[in-house]
């Protein structure tokens, strides 16, 4: 710490300057998209020639955009419930279990992380084509749940390891059923991790494009509709939609940071 007293060396200041430039590079896309979403022009231009809310109005007036948004919200909601429930059960099994093959179960639980999304997307597309599940939002929700599950298992597993199993045994010794002991003793201590898992599962589904691209058919999710718009036409509605999406993600993450176990776990 005595080193800190000295004035920063020239080298250190040079390194900090480079870091500052990289931070600017990281923030640039967000800094550009905000003013563009408020542009008054019919085309993409930066800086915008004037200010207007017309692209936000265009978004709210278009039933297709609204339908896509509601569909994505429904899918993300289903994924949140499914992934959090299944992931918590799996984490409990891995952390508390003493059965042989636990290491393999742990591997399977995080395996979806190791498979590139494009590979999983066409794998599940192949399966759902034969099952006639392509084009149904249920199918997307199921595939998104697979996608989100490893994050829940990792977060809940880390949290479970900090809870002493003796507490559960003590509660059972005092007459509680196992289910009652878990519900009343263990789960309340896991609440922050549960909240973090739920929000992470929600965002991972709400922002997901590649799986949805293959599975959504004509009834698009919000990212799929944005992707098609970006590919086909260059008009600023997408910028307004992007801002709405960023705002929603920010709200969700702020809530997660407030009620969850914070950003520490998310990394």
């Amino acid at each position: 710490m005595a080193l800190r007293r000295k004035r920063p060396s020239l080298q250190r200041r040079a390194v900090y300057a480079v870091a500052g430039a990289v931070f600017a590079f990281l923030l640039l896309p967000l800094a550009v998209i905000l003013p563009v979403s408020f542009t008054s022009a019919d085309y993409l231009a930066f800086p915008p020639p004037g200010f207007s809310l017309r692209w936000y109005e265009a978004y709210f007036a278009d039933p297709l955009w609204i339908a896509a948004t509601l569909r994505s919200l429904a899918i993300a909601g289903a994924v949140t419930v499914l992934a959090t429930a299944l992931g918590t059960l799996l984490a409990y099994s891995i952390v508390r279990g003493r059965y042989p093959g636990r290491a393999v179960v742990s591997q399977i639980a995080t395996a979806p992380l190791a498979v590139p999304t494009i590979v999983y997307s066409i794998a599940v597309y192949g399966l759902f084509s034969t099952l006639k599940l392509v084009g149904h939002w249920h199918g997307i929700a199921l595939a998104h749940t697979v996608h989100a599950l490893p994050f829940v298992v990792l977060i809940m597993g880390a949290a479970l390891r900090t809870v002493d199993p003796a507490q559960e045994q003590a509660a059972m010794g005092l007459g509680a059923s196992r289910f009652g002991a878990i519900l009343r003793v263990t789960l309340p201590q896991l609440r922050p991790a549960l909240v973090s898992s739920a929000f992470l599962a929600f965002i991972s589904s709400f922002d997901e494009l590649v799986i949805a691209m293959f599975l959504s058919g004509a009834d698009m999710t919000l990212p799929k509709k944005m992707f098609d718009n970006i590919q086909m036409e260059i008009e600023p509605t997408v910028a307004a939609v992007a801002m709405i999406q960023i705002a929603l993600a920010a709200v969700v993450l702020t809530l997660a940071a407030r009620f969850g176990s914070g950003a520490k776990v998310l990394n």
Partner: protein
Amino acid sequence: MSARRRDLGPLAAGALPLLFLGVLFLFPVLRLLLTSVEGGSLAAFEKAATDALYVGVLIDTVKLSLIVAAICLALAYPVAYFLATASRLWAAIGFGCLLLPFWTSILVRTYAWTIVLGRNGLVNRLLLDLGIATGPVPLLNNEIGVVVGMVHVLLPYMVFPIYAVMLRIDRDLAAAAEGLGATPWRVFTRVYFPLTLPGAFAGSVLVFVIALGFFITPAILGGGRVITIGLLIEQQVRQFLDWPFAAALSALLLAAALLIQGTFQRVLRGEARWH
């Protein structure tokens, strides 16, 4: 009740999620991989390994991923150093700058780059106004745009492992080296930098592997002129319905990802707790 009785509760708790992953993850992935050797023929793999067009795509993907990993490393190192050594307030601001885009969807960020890099975009306007260029410089629908977009998405994955390693370096080491007469530059090259190599290594492997399977960024910023293995797989499935070939490409991509990750897992496990 005997405490020694075999406890089957956790096993039962895992049954339902395992069944879910078995049906919706393991089964479709294995089914896809089997498609690549449909009818006991290795023709699909032969096509991927011999057809010059497809070999070119595989090589281009590896090259692109290497370039992206190298640029990420060069940019992430100063950022990690800043985060590890700046005052608490500045480090918090730095993390904000890092995490804000990290939590914005890849699609939105990629879209923003089309505005920045387009013909009438921010960069081209700047170049024209400063008199550096006489006409619009093509930055979109080519490798430049794809590299910029991918670096932007993958940079945090490089910063986190390097930062984690830097945090654990004992400050007294540098002080000791300085006390023994080393110049600051020598302290950095001989003491500090070698100690951060495991983090740099872990980050590079992670970024390279994720880059191999990238899809959204090359699809939008490449404008059809930059074909990666991910885009090739999508094209084979959707346009040509050539499932065996798409499956063979998927098998190659998956094998590469697992092999690289498996080989370096010791380093990754030991040094990068961020993944």
